[in-house]
């Protein structure tokens, strides 16, 4: 395993992006991860304020025409190697907003997605389980 990938499995810094077209419940559940019951900061997982500091780009919500451009730009600015995590049915495949006129395409047609966490909204436990699986996967690539 390269040094960079090895570093990726420790203390994930997460940049959370709600790409619009969501109902923000996924966002609340992600915040919930930080609060005492789940408290993922114990594992070194931290939300950061800038994509340039992040290992993980966590995306919720379905793309809208106005925000798709920004999602793309953010992905380009993310330091590589990094992982992209899609949380919630909206980010996976636009969910209930699939038939809307303002939701052009599912997220993974725009940028590559490494981890899908389904649910509307997924439970915080599901998100933790997803991240654990991802870390194992990265480690297993050695």
């Amino acid at each position, binding site marked *: 395993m390269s040094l960079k990938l090895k570093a990726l499995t420790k203390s994930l810094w997460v940049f959370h992006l709600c790409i*619009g*077209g*969501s*109902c*923000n419940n996924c966002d609340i559940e992600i915040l919930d991860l930080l*609060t005492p019951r789940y408290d993922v900061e114990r594992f070194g997982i931290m939300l950061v304020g800038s994509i340039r500091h992040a290992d993980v780009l966590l995306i919720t*919500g379905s793309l*809208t025409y106005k925000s798709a451009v920004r999602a793309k730009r953010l992905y380009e600015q993310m330091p590589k190697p990094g992982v992209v995590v899609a949380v919630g049915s909206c980010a996976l495949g636009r969910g209930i907003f699939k038939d809307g*006129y303002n*939701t052009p395409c599912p997220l993974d047609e725009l940028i590559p997605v490494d981890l899908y966490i389904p649910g509307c909204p997924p439970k915080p436990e599901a998100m933790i389980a997803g991240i654990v699986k991802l870390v194992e996967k990265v480690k297993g690539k050695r």
Partner: protein
Amino acid sequence: MSHKVIIPIGPYHPLQEEPEFFKLFVEGEKVSDIEIVIGYNHRGIEKICESKHFDQVAFVVERICGICSTSHPFAYVNAVEDLAQIEVPERALFIRTIIAEMERLHSHLLWLGLAGHFIGYNTVWMWAWRYREPLLDCFEMISGNRNHYAMMKVGGVRRDILDEYIPPLKKALDEINRAVDMFKGAVMDDPVIHARLKGIGVLTYDQAVEWSVVGPTARASGVDIDVRRDDPYGAYNRIDWTVVIRKEGDVFAKTVVRILEMYESIRIIRQCLNKMPKGEIDAEVKDIPPGEGIGHAEAPRGEVFHYVRSDGTNRPIRHKVRAPSYMNVASNKIAAVGQSISDATITLAAVDPCYCCTERVAVIDRFRNRKILDGWDLIRLSQEKTYKLRKK
């Protein structure tokens, strides 16, 4: 004033919500103008609703907002029931009321936590969210999901509140009651909070009326409106409760209104649990006749209004939604202008714009027209002010 501002990516803050974007123009320390850009989150829900049949629409409107995920379906079913003149069983009305009030509790706790975070009381954030958890557990117990409950249905509710759910629910309420006592003490007695929140972001009665704000934002400015009392729906007219009003219109008043409303919610839920009659939980719904119906509900942030028109088929041909934050957010234009930057965060947050939009704020120096601060810095400024006050 120049608008050649590129939206800074930095303002994406972990505490974020729908990407609304505020541009704050400052001169020195003072906020001189504010510009609100919204529309990043437009999903075309009204149009999607027109392609679903009446039962499915309840799920779509539930996903307008994750925090008000009962208020929207509640207003919607009220509208359809108004249209089709459906008689809803008594028990269903009580269950709806219980769920709506539980939602108000969790929403106000959520707001309280974030407001605490913005003025530098991170403990308050953690505690408020911790006390939200028992409530979410109750939601999960009753409806099977922590956040989208899917309880509302045209003609009744989808799931019953069984007898065995009631003791844990009451226990959770006791716990929350204690927590609210604690928060009330913390807010009312802390001189630092008084210094931070009193006289900040004032919205006078006239301004509140002029900008048609709703919900706790209006009630904190002395405007006596509450749909639950003015046009009772659900079981609100069978229950004894009061509307909380404050006169001052500042951020402190808004906080107090929300805290006191939590007590009212607890009272309403307790009474509902005791008075709930036995019986059916949904009425049989025949075809929806042509016509139009309106329904509203008092969401945690204010009045939610739904209008539904039917042409006799199984889907609405027009569905209009009016959500409270849309009016409330605009009132920031008067509340925040003239404040110092470190107070801007909490002022913008005080209307509870679904929860806080300030992370999308970029501060522009009006004379040099460049970005000097973003949402993170604003929160830092706000927190520093509290620390300074605390030391004094």
